[in-house]
Every structure is written in C-alpha cells, then in structure tokens.
C-alpha cells in the first residue's frame, strides 16, 4: 500500500519530465534506428533485419552505383534553389511590407498558395506546363520548381522580421549621412538577417528532401530522395543509412556550434 502511494507521488512530481522524455524518444527513435542499421551487414538486398556489426558501408559510402551522384545533384539543386528563393523572397517580402501598390492584398494571399496546395497537384500542373512549353525535363525544371515552392516560405519568414523592424532605424541611418544604398547594406540587411537566414535554411531543407514535385519534373535525372525511393523497390543499400546518419550528425553539429558561439558572445558582452 505504502509503495503504491509513494510511487503515485513520485509519478505526479515527475510527470512533466516523463512526458518530455517520451516525446524526445518518439522524435529520436527513427534516427537511432537509421544510425544503428548503418552499421549492419545484411544478408541479401534488404537492410531490414539486424545481422552483424560492420563498418563496411561507412568505409565506402559511394559504393553503390548512382548514390553519390544523386546526392551531389540534390545538394547543388538545394544550394541554387536556396539562393534563388532567398533573393527573390526577400525582395518580395520588402515590397509587400514597405510599399502600397495595387493588388498588394491579393499578392499577399497568393504567396501562400504553394504552401496550401497539395504537392502532388502542384507537381502535376507544373509537369503539364513544362511539357506544353516543350521544356526538357532535368536540372533546370527541378530548380525552377524548387525555387517556386520555397519562395512562399522565405517570404513568410522575412516578412515577419521586416514587419517588426522599426522604420525609424533606417531614418536614423539616413539622418547619419548614409545614402539609400548604405542604409540598406549597413542597417536594413543586418537587422533583417535572422529572418533571411531562417528562410534560407527552410528553403534548403525543403528543396533537399523534396520528392513528389521533383519526381514529376525530373525526367531522367535522379536526385537523392528519388534514388532512395527507387532503390527501396529493389533493396536498400546500407549506404543510404550512412548518408542519412551523416546528415543528421552534421545538422546536430551545426546547431551545437551556433549554440556555443552564441553563448560565448553573450559571455563576452556580460
């Protein structure tokens, strides 16, 4: 009896911690599985059952034909799509916040359409468009499609930042002898930078792992997500887990590095 009550009390006190740990486990478990199976040595073509520990795949990540080519293509597309979408999206965000023009309200809502529309519909209609225009499917059609659906995310992220910006800061810069260009480079851009960076990161992530739209508009070109999907039909090479794990680790390292830099900066200030 006494044991049950004390357990109840303990449970009540630690409820939040338990819920937090369970959520964390829910989030991390898939990544753990991916990582564990990157050290597997499967019998046969499918990497779904644990056989024995091996670092073979890590030693030779490009050992599967086409994998590293698709990975490099995906990275290139993600990079260019990020650049394009960030530049265009930042300009759109500034225009929407700063200027009053006709159809501004309409554009404000139209910008959200790519976010709201089912991806598969957008993919199909883009394909129709490209085919009608006689465009050759491949790198460029993928890039155009990616910039298109990344735009709305960048605009949303940058707009929030620009809207919260005090217009007097730019007036103060002008008052302190900065011309329009100097004002933009020295004051506007640095203050809007966190919003632009957030938009760019989102764009990169979205572009890198997009499958549906890419699959429709890629022609014979194969990106990394398409490669993974394609190989899953015929058997999953361990190298896919290796690439996945490496990306997860790199992302975590980025987050840790930014936290360390932030902390050090704060300490220096104080």
């Amino acid at each position, binding site marked *: 009896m006494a044991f049950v009550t004390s357990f109840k009390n303990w449970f009540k006190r630690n409820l939040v911690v338990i819920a937090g740990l369970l959520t964390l486990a829910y989030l991390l478990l898939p990544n753990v599985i991916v990582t564990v199976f990157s050290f597997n040595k499967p019998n046969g073509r499918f990497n779904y059952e644990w056989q024995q520990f091996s670092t073979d795949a890590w030693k030779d990540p490009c050992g599967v034909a086409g994998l590293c080519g698709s990975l490099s293509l995906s990275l290139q597309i993600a990079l260019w799509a990020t650049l394009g979408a960030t530049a265009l999206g930042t300009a759109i965000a500034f225009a929407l916040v700063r200027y009053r023009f006709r159809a501004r309200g309409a554009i404000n809502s139209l910008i959200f359409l790519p976010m709201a529309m089912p991806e598969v519909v957008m993919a199909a209609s883009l394909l129709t468009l490209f085919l009608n225009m006689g465009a050759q499917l491949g790198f460029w059609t993928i890039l155009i499609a990616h910039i298109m659906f990344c735009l709305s995310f960048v605009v949303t992220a940058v707009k929030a930042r620009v809207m919260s910006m*005090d217009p*007097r*800061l730019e*007036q*103060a*810069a*002008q*008052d*302190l*002898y*900065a*011309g329009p260009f*100097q*004002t933009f480079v*020295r*004051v506007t851009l*640095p*203050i809007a*930078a966190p919003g632009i960076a957030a938009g760019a990161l989102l764009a990169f992530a979205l572009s890198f792992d997009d499958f549906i739209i890419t699959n429709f508009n890629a022609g014979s070109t194969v990106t990394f997500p398409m490669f993974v999907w394609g190989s899953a039909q015929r058997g999953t090479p361990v190298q896919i887990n290796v690439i996945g794990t490496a990306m997860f680790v790199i992302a975590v390292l980025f987050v840790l590095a930014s936290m360390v830099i932030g902390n050090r900066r704060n300490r220096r*200030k*104080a």
Partner: protein
Amino acid sequence: MTTNTTKNQKAATDGGGDVRLAGIGKTYGSFTAVHPLDLTVPEGSFFALLGASGCGKTTTLRMIAGLEEPSSGTVHLGDQDVTALPPYKRPVNTVFQSYALFPHLDIYENVAFGLRRRGIKSVKKQVGEMLDLVQLGEQARKKPHQLSGGQQQRVAVARALINHPKVLLLDEPLGALDLKLRRQMQLELKRIQTEVGITFVHVTHDQEEAMTMADQVAVMNAGRVEQLGAPADLYENPRTTFVANFLGTSNLIEAEVDTRGGEDVVVKAAGDKLVLPGARCSAPAKAGGKVLVGVRPEKISLTHADDAGSIPEGRNRITGTISNTSFIGVSTQYVVDCAACPEFEVYAQNIDRDPRLAPGAEVVLHWNPAHTFGLDAAQDIDAGVAEGEAA
C-alpha cells in the same frame, strides 16, 4: 564621395547660421498637419517646440531633418537652402523618440556611424571623447539593449552630436524615462548644449521640460504656432487662452470693460471691480466690450473674510467660499467657488497656515493688479486645459 567631402568642409568651416523656416507647411491629403508657418531659431539657442500630441511639432522637426517633405515653404540653414536636400546631405542630426539605436551594432559603432559614413577613417579619438562627454566610456562594447533607458538616451545624443551638426533636433528625447531620470537628463542636456554651443531644437509635450531647458519656446496648437517667446515671458504674458491654460494653470474670468483710464483698464466681473495694466491686455479693450481676465494661482493671496479689513488698498479682490483644499507639502492648493469663476485656483506657500482656511470658509482673494492679464474674449475659455492635463 565628392558630396561627402564638401559636407565635411561645410561642417568644419561654416559653423554659423540660424534655422529659418519660411511659409513651411505640411498636408496629408485633406488633413493639414502644419499650417504654413515662419519660424527663426537663432544660432546657438536652445529652442523648444511645445504642444500636445498631434499639434504638428514633430512634423515640423522632421521637415527640418529632411525626413518629411514640406508641402510648401522653404528650410534654410544659415544661407543654405536645404529644402530639396535628402536627410543624408543635411548638416543636421536627430535624437529620435525612443532613440532608434542600431540594435546590431555596439555603442562604439553606433556613435561612430555618422563619421564612418562620411568617410572618416580614424574615429577612435573622437568616439572616445564623445563617450566621455556623455559618461559612457565604460560601456563602449555593449549592445544597446544591455543599457538602461537613460544610458541609451545619452548614446542617442552622442551619436548625433559627434557629427558637429549645425542643428541638433531632439524629438521627445526624454519621453520614455521616468520622472527622476527625466529631471536629471534635462540638466544634462542643458549642460551639453552649453558646452558644445550647437543649436538645439527640442520637441516636447511637457511644458515644464520646455520651460526648464529652452531659451525660446514656440507653443504649437493644431498645426499653428500660438505664441513664441522666452519661457518666463510666455508664462507671465500669454496671449491666447490656449497658452494660458497649457502652460501652467490660469484662472480666467469673463468680464466687461468698464473704463479705460490712463494705463489701467477697469473691468467688472460679477459685481467685482478688477484692474489690470493696459499694456498686459492683448484684447481690444473698449468700454462695454468683453475681455477674459486672467491671473496665475500663485499670485493670489487668501484671507479669511473676518480679516478682510487688513487687506491693503489698491489690490484686486474677489470673495468666495473654499470648496476644496489639498496639502502638497511646500504649498497648499485651494479651489474657491466665486461668483465670477466657479473653480478659482489658488496656490499658497505653507509659511504660516491659517487653520480657518478649510472647505466652507468664506474668504477674500486678492492680488496685485500688475499680475493680471487680459485676453480676447472671442476664444474658447477652456482651450488647452485638457491638453495641459494630458501632458
């Protein structure tokens, strides 16, 4: 680059010149923010634009800075017509309301911003001196959000002053500070102005602030300058009811001119005869005409009705009943109900307090006729009361 160098030379060699606004006005669509006005700010003076919010004072300031384009008129700095110049080409700097410090730069870089934009390479000495002037040498490497409100305010002043502008514009610079700090900063700003000798144009809604700091005050109301003058002159000789009520408190009594003999005007108000100097009556005082007679609350003496005999001859007198008293330490404020004026305010210093002066007591109010002023009766007697209370 060429514009930069010419400007530097100008700032360095040609320190002089008044700010002259000629017929300057601003309209937004059908709304007139500033009616065309003429104003000259003498070189080296501390000039205040005083008024309630929405009176056009900030718009006027922004037109001097170049941040607002005037709908009419011109702005001259000395001999130079700057009306068409953008803000970054005017030798004028602004201390913005809530400071507008650059959040991504530290204090040092905030202060150095103007020098760097003008292509000056070695800024270290100047920035150091300027930070010392505002007593912030220790904080140079902090970011603005790590400073207190008063410190941020001083950074804003330093950032503007380091450029040695011909005119420093201050837009409600003390509005965000608490009362004690505001008093301290008023003295500080006055000290800095005396030290650097630059013309300051200060926009404020706080009449006490304007009177403490400025050599000249322009009282603005509804896009117009109501009156311009030295603080004491504005306070003693208001020419409109707005100025009388907005600057401090005035007791205004509706009266009818009885006779105008020699230098004095004699008026009748609800049976009492009052005398005021003709020179202080801005209204056309014809016999039988209406005037508003005004007197400041602190000029009035309060005597209990039983002692009415002891009041010297030749003073203006009004009888009434005390309806309210409030004791505020150095003085006591009385509200007296008189036939001529239902809420007559009297401030009496607490030197010898007469215990009989309590609500309900019959009293005689009396004051030196020289302290009376006369205003045109054809205006709203309560103009400026609400604005003065809000401020």
